[in-house]
């Protein structure tokens, strides 16, 4: 989830059809620059180098989200497209144990499809298994010399990470093998 305000412009984005390290490249209609979601910037075109601001989002079950946000709206299937929304086209993929691309294999004792919370601070990358974060509830750690505080709220399955001044720290929740592909030097919190 990102802001579409880049500098003082408001951009709209589409799907390029290209993949970089098995992750989608998107493009903006205004300049046709390609953007990497995981690198969080434009990688080609007139906007090359422009950054994407990450906004907080939570992957959770509908009943949990609704309990924590009684007034929530929900995206409907009235999209203007004729698709079989009763099924997720990636369902089989979620069930597969390992990724398709050979260079993204997990190491011994690691699970490719494990969900991790990834943080990058001052050149240091660290991944936190989501299961560990959920289990502990609270967690203090230091990344790139910066003190971070994790607060996981079980009631709405929401994670907040703040720095020592209380500012929200951007993070991504993704598969371990995806995080590792983009951050080969990543450390792993155990």
């Amino acid at each position: 989830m990102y802001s579409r305000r880049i500098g003082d412009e408001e951009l709209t984005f589409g799907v390029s059809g290209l993949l970089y390290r098995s992750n989608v490249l998107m493009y903006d209609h205004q300049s046709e620059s390609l953007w990497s979601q995981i690198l969080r910037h434009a990688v080609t075109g007139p906007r090359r180098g422009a950054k994407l601001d990450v906004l907080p989002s939570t992957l959770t079950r509908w009943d949990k989200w609704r309990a924590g946000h009684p007034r929530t709206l929900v995206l409907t299937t009235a999209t203007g497209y004729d698709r079989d929304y009763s099924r997720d086209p990636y369902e089989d993929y979620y069930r597969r144990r390992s990724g398709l691309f050979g260079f993204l294999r997990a190491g011994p004792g690691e699970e490719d499809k494990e969900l991790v919370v990834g943080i990058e601070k001052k050149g240091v990358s660290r991944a936190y298994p989501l299961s560990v974060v959920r289990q502990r509830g609270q967690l203090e750690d230091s990344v790139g010399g910066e003190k971070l505080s994790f607060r996981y709220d079980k009631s709405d399955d929401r994670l907040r990470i703040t720095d020592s001044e209380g500012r929200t720290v951007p993070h991504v929740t993704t598969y371990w093998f995806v995080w590792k592909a983009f951050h080969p030097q990543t450390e792993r919190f155990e």
Partner: protein
Amino acid sequence: MRLLLLLALSLWPGPVFAAWDLSRADIDTGEILSGGPPKDGIPALFEPRFAAAGKAAFMRSDELVLGVDINGIAKAYPTRILSWHELVNDRFGGLPVLVSW
């Protein structure tokens, strides 16, 4: 977050790369692959429509959603819809946002 694996399974050569100027890329273009469908083959959403939680009979209680809460506005995006579109161009009050999957 979104992985185009399904589409990658059907990797086909085509004029996919011709649509893009990769000459000044700041990444190794050898690592850019065609996902299968052409540009906009997976249609992003631009005018998403929403229902109130109480009127969302189409939702199963245990299904996965991407939940967003900004400026006092909460929205849930079912992943079974996101998977068909990958991107939703949306707005939270005055803030233009991009939901990506």
